[in-house]
């Protein structure tokens, strides 16, 4: 397992589809190193008997009938689109 605390901000930024300036990369590298160093304390408590909790709510597998109901229209959904045409979102070409 990799050494914790050794965050490679430039690599993680690529995973997050988030461009950073060189200045931001350097700054976050130092700030997040400190945050992760602080998070090292999470290794201390004994969690061997603990089930992982994804949330604190006592609800699981909440289902409803799969029935059609009124919802907002395609026009509503496109109303905030930065670019649209023919009732569709326009994006740069992604296949050759």
């Amino acid at each position: 397992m990799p050494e914790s605390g050794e965050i490679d901000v430039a690599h993680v930024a690529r995973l997050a589809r988030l461009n950073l300036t060189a200045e931001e990369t350097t700054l976050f590298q130092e700030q997040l190193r400190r945050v992760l160093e602080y998070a090292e304390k999470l290794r201390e408590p004994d969690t061997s008997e603990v089930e992982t909790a994804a949330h604190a709510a006592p609800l699981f597998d909440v289902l409803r009938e799969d029935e059609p109901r009124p919802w907002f229209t395609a026009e509503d959904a496109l109303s905030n689109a930065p670019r649209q045409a023919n009732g569709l979102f326009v994006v740069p070409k992604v296949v050759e």
Partner: protein
Amino acid sequence: MTLADLPALNVGELRKLLQAREVSPREVLEALQARIAEVDPKIGAYLSLNFDAALALAEHADLNLPLGGVPIALKDIISVEGQPCTCASKILPNHRATYDATVVRKLKAAGAIPFGKTNMDEFAMGSSTENSSAKLTRNPWDLSRVPGGSSGGSAAAVAADAAFAALGTDTGGSVRQPAALSGVVGLKPSYGRVSRFGLVAFASSLDQAGPLTKTVRDAALLLNAIAGADPQDSTSLPEAVPDYTAKLDGELRGRRLGLAKEYMIDGIDAQVRTAIEEAVAHFQSLGAEIVEVSLPHTEYAVATYYMIASAEASANLARFDGVRYGRRAESPKDILDLYGRTREEGFGPEVKRRIILGTYVLSAGYYDAYYQRAQKVRELIRRDFVQAFAKVDALISPTSPEVAFPLGERQADPLRMYLADVFTIAANLAGICGISLPCGFAQTDGGTELPIGLQLLGKPLDEARILQIAHAYEQSSDWHKRRPPLAANVQRPTSNIQRSTQKE
């Protein structure tokens, strides 16, 4: 009092005048609009106002409904159909919500009138509202200081009588901490008590919407309106919603209040510590029993929170990619360039930092060490509260270890800012409810006085009990009656409305 003094009223007082037909919803909105025009240039609480839409709703307001005719301010992360919803981010510059959040639908159904959206830390990430990309919000008690955050606009508006009441959201203290720093009441409901549908998601397992108000009774009134199961939010709880105002009887005899020994940390401001000790003594004098309890995993709460909240945020904020809504970078050369530059241009530094942190703790090789580990420690923190609430009705603590700090003071040190959330974040991790209310004032070197907040935590779905305890304390003290210097030129209500004879 005159019509111009109406904004000084709390919701309960305003409702009495509306029900007695002494004022109309239109007059209320006009008085509020004038008040906002007077004070908001100084405090910067609002990001957008739409009094035309509000006046249209006011024409048909049903004054017999529980909140009939009452204007409510909303944090700009809460969707109101047709109104801006920017999350104080440059990535959603002209975004307009296409539907009402469930809390907004419910407020409207209870007769309330949305009229404006309040400033916040971008995407609710922060404790000072300084992470807003739009503007600074200033603390009405001292304009050189922060109002707290992330719901700082909502807190400042209520404190300055520029709102009768407001909604905020609380992921790690973002309702309670600004309420404390701005001297108002702030309630975080238990996870699942209030629907999250229509709130722009930050950390889905932690987020809850809650009221910021001038009194505890007002918080109960608003919770009555917004609580309950929602088919649109599968995490909303099916339990029936009681009338939260029904049990506000002022009785504290026999109540058992817990003081967690782990909360007696060194970092608490001396004046905050004194105010809390006096509040504890006051509770005892009213007949409550004080019990020392232990929350042994407290020291891990901040680290646990920042791992989990950042992980969830990195996933939730992936939707802001420049395709379906919001900003899009100009002339992208391909789709990855579009994503990368849109997000670079649109997100501010704190949001970027948390996306990076969250992506890292979820990435291959680190998931077990950080995210999975944090989820397990979260369960230990939740169990601490289960054990404490077996012994006591509620826990008492400061809401924040400090009073409002100067604008700009903490911006350079994220970790220090995070550590100030120590008393509030465990409630979100454990899914319990909490309320902050004024319990004193600290004197600054500059000669201003700053509010101090007392936090009461209750077990899941025990809002009625913490409201009852908070109300009993509030009604036996005068802290909630003090107004910031900004509000001093508005008369507190004394008698009926005086109308000038010329008024149409």
